Structures are given as C-alpha cells and as structure tokens.
C-alpha cells in the first residue's frame, strides 16, 4: 500500500509544520510544567538567601553562589560526598553482580524457576517504608533478630544502626536487597535475546560453562548491562527513604548522603535552610546528568566502532 504525495487530507508545506507542532505541544507542555519549571525553581532557590520570612513573602535577595559556598564549607560536605560515592558504588557493584548471577541461574529453566524468580521480585514490590522499617527493626541493637541470630552462634551483638562505623554498611545492605530484583529482571530479559544457537556452537567447540559466560553471555549482554547500571546509578544516587527511615543519616552524619543531607537542610529542622538544601539537590542533579552524558558518549563510541 503506497501513499501518493498529493493525497487529499495531508496538508502540504507550512500547514504540515503547524500540525507537527500541535502534536508536539502536549509533551512540550508536560515537560515544561513538570520538569523544566521545578528544575528552574530549584536552581532559583539555591541562588537566593531564603529565610522563613522571605520564603513566604517571596522577596528573597539574590546572593549568587553563596549557598554553594556554604555547602562546600560545611563540615558535613566531605563525609556526605564520600558516603554518597561509597553508597552508590558498593550498591551498584553488588546489585549488578548478584542480579546477573541470579539471572544466569534462572535462565537454566529448572523446575520451580518461575516461582522462585517471582519470589525474588518481592523486595521490589514492597513499599519502601515497609521494607526500610522491617530492616530497621531487624537490625535493632537490643531486640533485633539479626543480633539474636549472631548471639546464637556466639558472635557479639553489633550496633548496626547506632554505631558510626556500621550505620553506612547497614543501609547499603538494605539497599542492595531492594535493588537486586530490578537488576535481575532487566538482565534476565537481556539473556532471552541471546540466541541459543551460539551456546550450542560453543558447546560443540568444547567451551566450558565459564568460557561460555565470559565469551558469549557477558559481551552480548553489554548494552543491557550499560543501561541497567546507568538506571541503577541514577536510582541509587537519589536513595533517600531507606536511609532516612533507618538512620536519619546518623548517628553523627555517619550515614548521610547528599540526598539525606539535602532533606535535612530543607526539612529536617524547624527553621528550614531551603537555599543550601536546594544547592545540595542541584549537585545531585548535575551528578546524575554527568553520568547520563558519559553513558551516551560510551554508547556512541560503541555504535561507531
């Protein structure tokens, strides 16, 4: 079926352009209203000196980068940056490795594999407040089940959430548990697209399971892995609920990341510091954007080569 150019109903030239714009309007409006405007407001907030009074009256003086300087000079900045990097990196690595291992495992299609795979999705389906509260209850130093289990095998109790040397580890463990299903699902669907004939050919050539994984599965999964890691990175950078519910970023800022610090500044006190809070938030947005661009660059190089 072919359409001729002069078919009635298809407006030529300029009218066509207008129609195209009309089709673009809804999505443009949506983006402007729900993404561009909040983003603009957040940048604006971070460049003004807000007090509670000027926040309500809307006449906060423009102070340039003063809020950013405050944030950079804050004694919380260096630890928060370090925690954000450690939290994101460790979570990503473990989520990806465990997710990939499970995906390969479930790809064997053994009996009950579907049921088991469904069970692994539970952490993903639970509301964050439920899983975080459950973790915080299990990790309680006095009455938590984990310390009870440790006690049973003769290990001294650990102050998971209340010791500055353990709190970051605790929230990382909880976040890995929550993030594994996402990696599992995406990587599993990626595995489906690798033709079985490749494995057959490799098997005939005498490749063992380990070689098949490193020579076939892993390279062919690379595009899926890249998008999984990028999405995981953006999700993990902004993780807030789990940390806030479990430790509030404490004790003594030992588990505070940029996300919790931003909230702490903006909402954690009776007198909110909206300006510095927004500044920290913007740093997070920039970080996510930078990694997004890095991903695109890598992808483009791959496409060209």
């Amino acid at each position, binding site marked *: 079926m072919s359409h001729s150019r002069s078919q009635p109903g298809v407006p030529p030239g300029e009218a066509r352009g207008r129609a195209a714009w009309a089709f673009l309007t809804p999505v443009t409006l949506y*983006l402007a209203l729900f*993404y561009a*405007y*909040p*983003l603009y*407001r*957040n940048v604006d*907030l971070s460049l003004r000196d807000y007090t*509670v*009074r000027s*926040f*309500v*009256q*809307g006449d906060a003086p423009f102070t340039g980068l003063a809020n950013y300087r405050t944030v950079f000079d804050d004694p919380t900045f260096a630890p928060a940056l370090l925690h954000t990097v450690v939290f994101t990196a460790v979570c990503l690595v473990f989520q990806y490795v465990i997710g990939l291992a499970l995906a390969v495992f479930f790809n064997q299609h053994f009996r009950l594999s579907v049921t088991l795979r469904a069970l692994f999705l539970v952490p993903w389906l639970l509301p964050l407040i439920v899983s975080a509260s459950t973790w915080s209850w299990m990790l*309680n*130093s*006095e*009455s938590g089940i984990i310390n009870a289990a440790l006690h049973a095998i003769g290990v001294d109790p650990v*102050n998971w*959430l*209340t*010791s*500055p040397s353990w709190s970051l580890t605790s929230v990382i463990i909880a976040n890995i548990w929550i993030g594994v299903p996402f990696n599992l699902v995406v990587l599993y669907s990626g595995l489906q697209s690798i033709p079985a004939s490749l494995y057959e050919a490799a098997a005939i050539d005498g490749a063992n399971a380990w070689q098949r994984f490193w020579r076939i599965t892993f390279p062919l999964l690379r595009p899926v892995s890249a998008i999984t890691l*990028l999405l995981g990175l*953006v*999700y993990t*950078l*902004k993780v*807030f609920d789990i940390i806030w519910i479990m430790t*509030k*970023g*404490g*004790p*003594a*800022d*030992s588990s505070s990341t940029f*996300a919790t610090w*931003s*909230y702490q500044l*903006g*909402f*954690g*006190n*009776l*007198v*909110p510091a*909206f300006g510095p*809070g*927004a500044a920290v*938030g*913007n740093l*997070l*947005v920039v970080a*996510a*954007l930078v*990694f*997004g661009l890095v*991903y*695109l660059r890598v992808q*483009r190089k791959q496409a060209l080569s």
Partner: protein
Amino acid sequence: MNSFSRQRRLTAAAMTALAVATSATACGSGSGGTGTNAADSGTYTIWDPYPQFDKSSDWAKLLDDCGTEAGVKIKRTAFDTSDLSNKALLAAQQDNSADILIVDNPVVSTLAEAGVLTTTDDNKLDTSKADPNLLAAGQSGGKTYGTPIGANTLALYYNKEVLKEAGVDADSVKDWTSLTAALEKVKKAGKKGITFSAIGTEEGSFQFLPWFWGSGAKLTELDSAEAVSALSLWKNWLDKGYAPNSVINNTQTTSWQEFASGDYAFAENGTWQLANAEKAGFDYGVLPIPGADGGNASAPTGGEFVTIPVQGDTGRYATSQRLVTCLTSTENLYDTDTTLSYVAPTSEVQDKQVAANAELKPWVDAVKAAKGRTSDDLGTKYPKISEQMWKAVQSALSGSNSPKDALTAAQSAVK
C-alpha cells in the same frame, strides 16, 4: 539522518536522567503544597498533627460539631508533626494556608517570624485563661500568636515490679547519683535500667532537655561544664549498660515499646503515654525527673497551639475565631485533653482533670513547672540550637566524639 537520531537519543536520555533526579530533589521547590481553601467559602480547613485520629474519632467529631455550631463545614487534614511546619510554610507561600492550624508549640515562633500567623490583636482570640508559662511559647516580640490546646511534659515512668525485684525504693531517687545507683542495682538484678529517646530529631532534644536544664546549663551556652555533665550522665549510662544502645535511634514511641516489654526499670516519657501505661500489664509509678543535685529538673513543655494563619480574605477570621473558641472552651478542652492524654492549659480544666483522675496530679504539677523551649527570648534561635544539641548527643552517645568535644563543636556551629 544517523546524527539526527543520535542527537535525539541524547536529548531523550538526558531528559530522562534529569527527570528521575529531579523528582527526588525538587521537593525544595515549593511545588509540593497541598491546596486547600478558597474552593468554597462555607468550608473551613483545619490542619492538625494528630494522624492517629481517624474520621470516627472524638476529635474529628468535635471539629465537626464546632463547625455545625458556627454554621460552616469543616475539612480536616492530619499531618505527621514533623511535616506540618514545612507544609504550613509551603502553603503560606502559595497563599493557600489552612483557616486553622494546630502546631507544635516550638514551631509557633518560627511561623510567626515568617508572617504566617495572625496575632490575637487581629483575630480577637481570648487567651486570658491559659497558664502564662504555657502561653509563653506562643509569644514573641510582645505579641501572642495562638492559644495552647493542651500541654504535656516529660517525667520518669517506673516499673514497680522490676524495682521491687532489684530492691530499689522509688522514693530514694532524688538526684542523679541516687538514680544511677538505682540503675546499677537494677542491672545487677539482671534487669534493664532506663530507656529514653536520643534520636537525631527534635524529639531527641526534647528528651535531653530535662537533664540539660537539670544540670543548670543554659541553651545559650551548649559547651558549659554543666551541659557536659548532663551529656556525660547519658553517655555513662550507655557505657555501663544501664541504658540500651538502641536509644540512639529510639523515637519516644519505640522507647515506650521497650519499657512496655516489662524489662526496664525506668523510662523517660510523656503525659501522652498514660493511657498506654494503664494497658502495659504491670504496676507503674511516675517520678519527676530529678535535677543533678536534687530537686526537680524543669522539663520542656510539649503540646500544640491553635493558631489562625493569615488569609487573603480577612473576613474569614471571625468564623475561624468562633471555631477556635469552641475548640478551646472549657468543656471541649476537657474532652480533647482527655482524648489526647494531655494536661489542660487552664487551671479551671486542670482542677477538673485532677478531680476525675487523681493520678494526673504529678503531671499537672510538672506542667506548671515546665519551661517552653522557645522561652527566654530564644524564639527562632531555638531550632538552630536544638539541631546542634541533638547532633552533639548523637555523636557523644555513638562514641564518635567525647561529650565535651561534641558540645564544643555544637556551640561553635550555633554561632
């Protein structure tokens, strides 16, 4: 063509990354306000921090009854206490404030500073009956910004059975030394000493204040020797195992749950737990929190204020004032404060409460002796001091800093 589609993919992916990140961080932008009024002039909105009361509760019914009396409909929204002050600020920024706002007392001076609240001169509320030490939390710069709906404060609950087993006489607890001695005996008897809440929020500061003030320290000088002695007392309890390590993450509710397990001898908690204490299934008693060298420490006043936020349409104040007057009338105050397990803010209703339940007597006395957190002309300085104080408590108790260093750092951060 190829470069065009690449370009488009770039934009799309960048947009996605931005969108995902923005949804996490844009909360500071003020777009999160829940719109309320102006929909219907016959509907009056009330925001309160009592999410535990649902539509069928006595509290919700009282609001509706007062609405009926004033000839208007009530639309009530309940918030978590810690959310309410920010929600109120955001709403005021959008010129969308509730008609009546019930907020935690230390927030009043902040909202007043922001110009969100009307003064009693504007809204014609009568506050003459409220106890002056309670009303003080709602006053700044010689103006009054609301009226207390009820008050509570902290004291020490004790488990009579545990104390008896350990051979401790509750009357012997007169000062910090005798309290620590009692805790030691309890621990030797194989029971747990004391639980409280030292969480990194306003609740942690609230619970620390009786000890802080009981040592003779002042909020304007966080690093004084007295302040260090108060924090060292708590730290020492944790080190010796008299208090559980979980206090660092305890809210007052989780701390209460620990006490309700029946293993603990003492718990620092508030008036609002009285109803739960009856249900705990063991004999309990209540002690005022002792000062360092005897006598009773001043505890901070808790409880909410009923305020009338500034409206574009000033004609609404008259009805709002009638609603507030109804809510804080003598007979309604009695019912409300019984439901909330609070001490009433007026002596008339306090007498009625004690007559009905003699066990409230120590609490009424404690409330009369209590001190507002924003009093002493601290006003909006208090929240900053409080944040540094709870941080110091957290870092000392978790062992990342000594009490002295933690408080010195706190004091220099306030300045």
